[in-house]
Structures are given as structure tokens and as C-alpha cells.
């Protein structure tokens, strides 16, 4: 199965991969639409992906969140997303079967089922899962949200992040 692999020596921390991912998963598929019309002015980039879902919710409907994220230390950066593991830890940990493998072997989320218990986030060894505060299936629970992770851009032949990376720091290929 083809997966996205980082080539970190090529990564220059521009985070256009994050932008591309956001735009690809927006309704308008246009950066201005995604950030201004769909998004309501909270900025994940400013906090290096540290978002308190509650704050985001209070700010209104947030724009789609990036499913890939760049980790920076000093002058080195690396962009990582879900590995789409076979026998994935997140699938094994999910409290109510919200995560599943689609026919292509991708690890996917049943968005109407996830209750935001964060078992998956705890279990994923790659830190690939984030909290998406925009959706919620258990209304009474405060400050919740649902699982958010890479879906490998099912509508595209090659993922948005890989396509956009200016330096080839992301590679989409089959490896053994």
C-alpha cells in the first residue's frame, strides 16, 4: 500500500503541506474560502498544533484542521502524518469501533460514531492523531471533539500534502 513518508532532510518548515491538507479537506477547496469563510479565525499554526478544542469551539466553527503536522526543533523540521499501520494501535484502542480499515487499507474514521475518548490519541505511537473540535457525537460531554487524522486524500490520486511540498520532503510510495 502506498503511504506518505517524510524525507526530513528536505523539509524546510514552510508548512505548505499543512495548508494543502486544510484546503483539500475544506468545502470550497480554496485557501481563502477554507480559512475565511469556513474558518472562524483561530490559528493552529500559531501554536504549533497545540489547540485546546474548547477555545476553538468558543471562537466559533473552526476551519478544517491539518492532518499532517510539522515538528520543529532548532533548524530541523519533519512533517509527519498517520502511518496507516496495518494492525494499527489506534484501531486496537478505539473504545467503540469508530476506526476501521477501508478497502484500500487506509485507517479511517466513522465520523458519526467517534465519541472523543482519546484512546486512539493515547495509543498512536506516532502522535498522528489530533482532536478536531468541530464535530461532536456526545453532546453533553464538555470540551470534546472527534478523532482527526490523515485520510490519505481519498479523492485524489496523490495526496495534497505530497503534491504541494516544494522540496519533495514528502514521498508517496509503496515500501517494504
Amino acid at each position, binding site marked *: 500500500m502506498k503511504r506518505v513518508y517524510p524525507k526530513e532532510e528536505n523539509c524546510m518548515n514552510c508548512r505548505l503541506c499543512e495548508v494543502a491538507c486544510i484546503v483539500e479537506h475544506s468545502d470550497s477547496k480554496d485557501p481563502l474560502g477554507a480559512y475565511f469563510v469556513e474558518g472562524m479565525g483561530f490559528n493552529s499554526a500559531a501554536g504549533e498544533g497545540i489547540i485546546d478544542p474548547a477555545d476553538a469551539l468558543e471562537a466559533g466553527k473552526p476551519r478544517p484542521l491539518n492532518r499532517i503536522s510539522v515538528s520543529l526543533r532548532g533548524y530541523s523540521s519533519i512533517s509527519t502524518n498517520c502511518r496507516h499501520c496495518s494492525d494499527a494501535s489506534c484501531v486496537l484502542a*478505539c473504545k467503540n469501533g469508530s476506526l476501521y480499515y477501508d478497502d484500500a487499507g487506509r485507517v479511517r474514521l466513522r465520523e458519526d460514531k467517534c465519541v472523543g475518548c482519546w484512546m486512539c490519541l493515547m495509543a498512536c505511537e*506516532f*502522535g498522528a492523531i489530533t482532536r478536531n473540535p468541530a464535530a461532536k457525537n456526545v*453532546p453533553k460531554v464538555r470540551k470534546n471533539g472527534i478523532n482527526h487524522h490523515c485520510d490519505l486524500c481519498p479523492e485524489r490520486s496523490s495526496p495534497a500534502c505530497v503534491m504541494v511540498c516544494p522540496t519533495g520532503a514528502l514521498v508517496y510510495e509503496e515500501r517494504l
Partner: protein
Amino acid sequence: MKYTIIGNSFASVFAVESIRKTDSKGEIRLISEEEGPAYSPAMLHEYLSGVASKGLLYLRPSDFYEKNGVEAILGSRVDKVDAAARTLSMGRKKLEFKKLLIAAGMTPFVPPGIKGLSGFDNVFTFTRKTSADSMLRKIKGVDSAVVLGGGLIGLQCAEGLAHAGIKVTVVELADNILPLALDDDAAGMVLEELRQEGVNVITGNTIVQINGRKGKIESVTLRSGEKIKCGMVVVAVGVRPNVDFLKDSGIKIDRGILVDERMRTNIKDIYAAGDCAQGLEILSGKKMPIPIIPIATKQGSVAGYNMAGKNEIYPGGLSLNALQFGGLQVVSYGFVRDEEKAEVLKDRDHQGNRYKKIILKDGRISGVILLRHIERAGLFRYLIENKTVVEGFKENLMLWNFGVAHLPKDVRDAMFTRPV
């Protein structure tokens, strides 16, 4: 019938899937004491309070058994397994098996010495959907409840009851709640959150007597002498492996069913997985039951693969917790209270109400607690499970933005250059 599985929960579901990934034809028979499709016990409190619709409870779509060609015998309890004769019996019915997986889970532990426990209707345990269902039936006539046990199950039950509009008091014998998953600081923060959710907690105490009239509970008496008014009591002091029905079966049992790294019991072609099994814990190197979902599923999956002929190793597990109380997320790994001969890194951000603690032993991580800021928590799991020596970059671990780039290059390469 090639495969027989006792149990219909996490371990069993993953076993079925792993068998099917390897062997698309071999017949599978699955027997469970409970009626209905596999559900998540960890969703029961949300089911109880009504925040989660019923559909969210079930582990797999309704066509799961049919699609995987599983003959499901639901609502029948296996009361005996004869390993030598390779039969199991359900009441008077006897079945032969070739390959057997025992995934019978846990059963609630009810402590002796509480007076009046058996005299009342409204005393419950909280591990099965049936108990949640009968609680739901009684809940209308009740306005307050006492939950005995401040562990995971007790607190979840308490929160569920609180969300359903019932006044709840939790009574915990130890000095603090969640003694296995949290340290005192973290427990304090959780306690605060629970109070906001409407759950009252009493620690260092226990119930000695249940008082009432005509089968109706009126109050409980605590060891301290205090009396608490209530109409319902939930006993959630712990669970133990559900292995009583295996007595005299010939299968080796310690606290749970002893299994090797392929989930095999001492008897050929009999496997065990999940809460009833006693597998390897990697930090201590000892075998112990760890009754949590990620372990049950992993063991179930490994058992399934091996039963179907694929060689798959269970590397061992550790305590892994992700909990949510009110608006507070909690993640913890490993042994979080064992600070003997350990280096403890700790950071409590009072303003953001965040807490992070890492316990290091011999340069490796042996325990982690994260409160509220749980982003990328799983990286710690990787470091613990791979026994990575973190001595050289331990200052990075405490950064709030600790991420992949903070790991050494060789660790990153091992993680991200090959498929998983």
C-alpha cells in the same frame, strides 16, 4: 468447526478479524453468555446517562458476524471446558472444539463484609450492559446514589449517573482516586473536575452497611460512622479475570489464564486473550492481567493470527489509560506511582491547568501522566515500549510542544521510514 471462541467483546472481535485476514474460509463459532452484538463496556456510562445514542455502543456494524462467516451462539454460558476431551459444555449441551480461544473477560469483584448487600434490589455492579439496562429501569425512582470504588469503572459510572441527573457520592478506600492510573497531584485535578460534574468523592473510607426497608435502600453507613442517604448502590471495587468456569479444565491459571507470547495456554490449541488472560507486562517483565481495551484487542488479534497459522508475537503490554472526566483529558502510561530509585520530571501549569509527569528509571521511561495537554502523547508509548534510552534528550520530553523533531534521528528514522 475449526475455530471456537468464548466471548463476544474486544478480544473476540479482533480475533475473528485476524483469523479472517489469514484464513478466509475456516469456520468460526463464537459463544457468549450475553445476548446481542458485541458492545463496548467502556461506553456503558455514556449509555447510562443517555449522552451517547445506542448505536455508538456497538463495536462493529450489524453485519459483522454474517460478513465474517461467524456462527454466533449468543445468550449461552459456557460452564465447563474439558481440555482433555476437547469439549465444552453449556448446561446440558456439549460441543467439541478443535482450536479454542477463551476471551471471557473479567468479572466484577464484590468484597465480603458489607452488611445488607444481598438484601436490596438497587445494588448493582457495572461491567455489563445488563447491569446498565437494569439500572436504567430503576433510575427513575432514585435521586441519589453511592458508588463504592473510585477506580476507573466507579468514576465513570458515577459521572454517568451524575449526567443522568442523580446526586452521586463515590466512596474510595484508598487515599486517592484512580490509584493505578494517577498520582496524587493528577488525582487532585481529576477530583476537582468531577466535583464540577456533580460527583462528590469521599476517600479513605468504605461502606460497612446498607440500610433500608422492604428491599428499598435508604442510606449507607460508612466505616467512619457517617451515613449517606441514597437510593442506589453501585459496587465497583475492581474486576478479576473471569476464570471460575475453567476450574478443573486442566488449563493453567494463576490470577488469569497464563499465556505465552503467542497467546497459547499450557494446552495445545487452546488460546486465551483479553481481560481473562495473564500475559507479559513489559516494564516489570512479569505476567499480570491488565484489563484494558488495547491489551485485550492486541492479544485477541495475536491469538487469532496464531490460531489461523500465522506466526505473530505479542510483545507484551503495559498499563495504558486515556480517560476523560468533564472537560479534562487524562492519559497515563506504565507505573505512575513507582518513584523508587527513579528520576521524576514534573511540570504543572496551574494557569492552563495542565500537568505532565515523567518517571525515568535507568534512563528509560517507566511512567507518564499527562493532563489536558495530551497532544502527541503516543510518542511516549513508543519510547516506553521500545525501551528507548531517553537520557540524552530527556529535557526535550518536558517541552509542551514535544514532537517528532525532538526525538533523536535514529529513532525518527526507525519510526518513519518503513511501513508499520
